[in-house]
């Protein structure tokens, strides 16, 4: 990215080698411990969003495949759930270790398939993926101490549908607690990012996991819908959009299926006038430009106290001018590609709507590559609460800036959304942090930091951001009969 500020300190290219990962020209579905073609022979292509290069051809699961996978998971359930917890734990520990061993390969793969920078897959996604398996491995033989009764029971077959923004991390969030508690799983990765889940199938093979315990069914929304609706699925876990979440809640209504949903958000990042400005700027950048803003808990609404608005925006714009957008495999890249053409279209149309409604749009000088799907980091000022860019989840590198005068006003504006997933509070005053955090209707509140994740820490939303928590002791509940 060229700008006056960076030109004096240009970086040499620092590409990570992609030779560490060997992508086959085609992949099947992973059912009952084996790769297999789809019953109706359908396939789809997965492309690299930064180059539009076709990476591989993937079998597309249909209803018959869903049925086959659920049956395999049901067959495997008896033995898997009967296994002593300590033995299940060892499988999960093995998986965690193999992920660590193969983390460079998986990081490169994830960057190729998703478009996010290698800096993030290498330093955030993969370490967290391994950590999740380690954390839940340790629960497998301690479930009677988890506070859910003396012998909590697994539910059975878990149908899990995950999004494309953190393909392997979302898989870990879903599969680790499910296996630790003795359930078996059928997981559908997103159609734009199926590869790391299929590589995970190979990790399961290396770990010697019994066949049928984990089944992977790449496909589109209809595959997910068939999985959710399958009568022999006992638990449904979904991460994705609020609209799909509502449709799933209606599908499982009146059944005994247990449901957890991690849905959209429109997180408020509140900066008070006594906040450490430089740290706040870093937090704001991390809050909305991490993973190209394709994060459900992104801090997409900046609420800044009026008295420091000018100073903060100036710092923020200066900082944005130093962000490097480009080849996600380059180790110096901060901002990678948008995951798909469809997502780019959505971001573009919402941003155009923002302009049409009168919000003021700003981006640093930024050259976009010729191929692939790209969107420059974008700020909106002069935003009111009624603006679409302040209400709708954009799921892209777009920050809306609003102002406030009093803490009460900040809280009222922060809570003025049907969502309730995340929020940030920046101030030096401890009592203010606690008072504001108390009043925010959000499942995760980051004070003087943002977008931090940890397997021991429950994550999930209030209101229309869904229900249930993933991570921590709380995350076990979703997979136990309690």
């Amino acid at each position, binding site marked *: 990215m060229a700008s006056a500020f960076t030109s004096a300190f240009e970086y040499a290219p620092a590409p990570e080698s992609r030779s560490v990962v060997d992508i086959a020209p085609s992949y099947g579905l992973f059912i009952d411990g084996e790769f297999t073609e789809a019953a109706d022979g359908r396939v789809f292509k997965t492309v690299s969003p930064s180059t539009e290069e076709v990476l591989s051809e993937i079998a597309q699961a249909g209803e018959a495949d869903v049925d086959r996978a659920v049956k395999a998971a049901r067959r495997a359930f008896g033995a898997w759930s009967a296994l002593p917890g300590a033995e299940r734990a060892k499988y999960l520990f093995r998986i965690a270790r193999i992920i660590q061993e193969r983390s460079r390969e998986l990081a490169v793969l994830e960057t190729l398939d998703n478009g996010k920078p290698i800096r993030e897959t290498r330093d955030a996604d993969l370490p967290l993926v391994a950590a999740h398996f380690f954390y839940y491995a340790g629960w497998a033989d301690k479930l009677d101490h988890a*506070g859910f009764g003396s012998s909590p029971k697994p539910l059975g077959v878990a149908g899990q549908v995950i999004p494309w923004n953190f393909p392997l991390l979302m898989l870990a969030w879903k599969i680790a607690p499910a296996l630790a508690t003795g359930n078996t799983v059928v997981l559908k990765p997103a159609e734009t990012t199926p590869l790391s889940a299929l590589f995970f199938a190979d990790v399961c093979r290396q770990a010697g996991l019994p066949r049928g315990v984990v089944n992977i069914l790449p496909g589109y929304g209809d595959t997910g819908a068939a999985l959710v609706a399958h009568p022999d699925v006992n638990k449904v876990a979904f991460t994705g959009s609020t609209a799909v*979440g*509502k449709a799933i809640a209606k599908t499982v*209504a009146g059944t005994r299926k247990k449901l957890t949903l991690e849905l959209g958000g429109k997180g408020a990042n509140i900066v008070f006038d006594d906040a450490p400005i430089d740290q706040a700027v870093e937090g704001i950048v991390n809050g909305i430009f991490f993973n190209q803003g394709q994060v459900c808990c992104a801090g997409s609404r900046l609420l800044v106290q009026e008295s420091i608005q000018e100073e903060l925006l100036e710092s923020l714009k200066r900082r944005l001018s130093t962000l490097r957008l480009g080849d996600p495999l380059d180790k110096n890249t901060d901002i990678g590609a948008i995951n798909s053409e469809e997502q780019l279209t959505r971001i573009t149309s919402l941003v155009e709507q923002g302009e049409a409604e009168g919000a003021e749009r700003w981006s640093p000088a930024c050259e976009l590559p010729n191929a692939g799907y790209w969107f420059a980091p974008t700020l909106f000022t002069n935003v009111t609460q009624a603006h679409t860019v302040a209400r709708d989840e954009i799921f892209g590198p777009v920050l809306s800036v609003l102002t406030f005068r009093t803490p009460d006003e900040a809280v009222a504006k922060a809570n003025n959304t049907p969502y309730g997933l995340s929020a940030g509070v920046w101030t030096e005053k401890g009592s203010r*942090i606690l008072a504001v955090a108390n009043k925010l209707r959000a499942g995760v*509140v980051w004070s003087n930091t943002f977008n931090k994740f940890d397997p021991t*820490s429950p994550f999930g939303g209030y*209101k*229309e951001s869904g229900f249930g928590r993933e991570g*921590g002791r709380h995350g076990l509940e979703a997979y136990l009969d309690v």
Partner: protein
Amino acid sequence: MSDKPEKTEQPRLSVFKTYKLYVGGKFPRSESGRVYEVTDAQGRWLANAPQSSRKDARDAVVAARKAFGGWAGATAYNRGQILYRVAEMLEGRRGQFAREVADAEGLSKSRAAAVVDATIDRWVWYAGWTDKIAQVVGGGNPVAGPYFNLSSPEPTGVVTVLAPQESSFLGLVSVVAPVIATGNTAVVIASERSPLPALSLGEVLATSDLPGGVVNVLSGRTAEIAAPLASHQDVNAIDLAGADEALAKELEIAAADNLKRVLRPQPVDDWAATPGIDRMTAFLETKTVWHPTGSLGASGSSY
């Protein structure tokens, strides 16, 4: 003025009670002006209960929302005191409630008295939970980084409660007390056939220091009142205890519109058994707060 009152053989004519709703701390009739006939187990007329309308349901939600901030923000100690106060107030009215429960459920006097005692004890049980549930279901998370990280439960908001149909008093309190013990406010639909103990409970709540609007009691046709509540955008959760299978499914579908938390009907063999904490946790959110811990120097304290 005669110094010799006229002797009469007629028994005293009792004073009937006009049963009213309990909404926002007040006792309105249904805005629809409708009532329906409530009979005892033998079919004898007991009273005319208000037959609530959609408007009554919406009014109750407004009252519950208005009360939520104050009730959720009250100290857990204070909420416990008030729940215990409800038990105190009920204790003084054991006779009245034993009669009402006996009539409502066709129980013998002694069985009804036992049910009322168990109900009073249920309030006491939940009174003790208000300041403990956070310690049981919340806690610190040992994250791998320099952060102080704490998860605490918080009430989810306004909860619609379809009270169990068969257990008009013990069942009712067993589903209402856990909702408010944790700081939620409630819109309660009383048992359709036996609403009178629930309506009388409103009178007790009104004199127990419970802020108006924390519990709102409606009587009438469960399906009719529940439908607008299940689809109400300002209701955060719904307890389907009093719904049959078909109604429960319909309401669960409506509840998905704003992703209400739904507690599906659970088979309860014995309402008198000590409850678990599930009815409390069903209406709690978990909020996790992160904060950097910083460092006072290069080396840690040497104790």
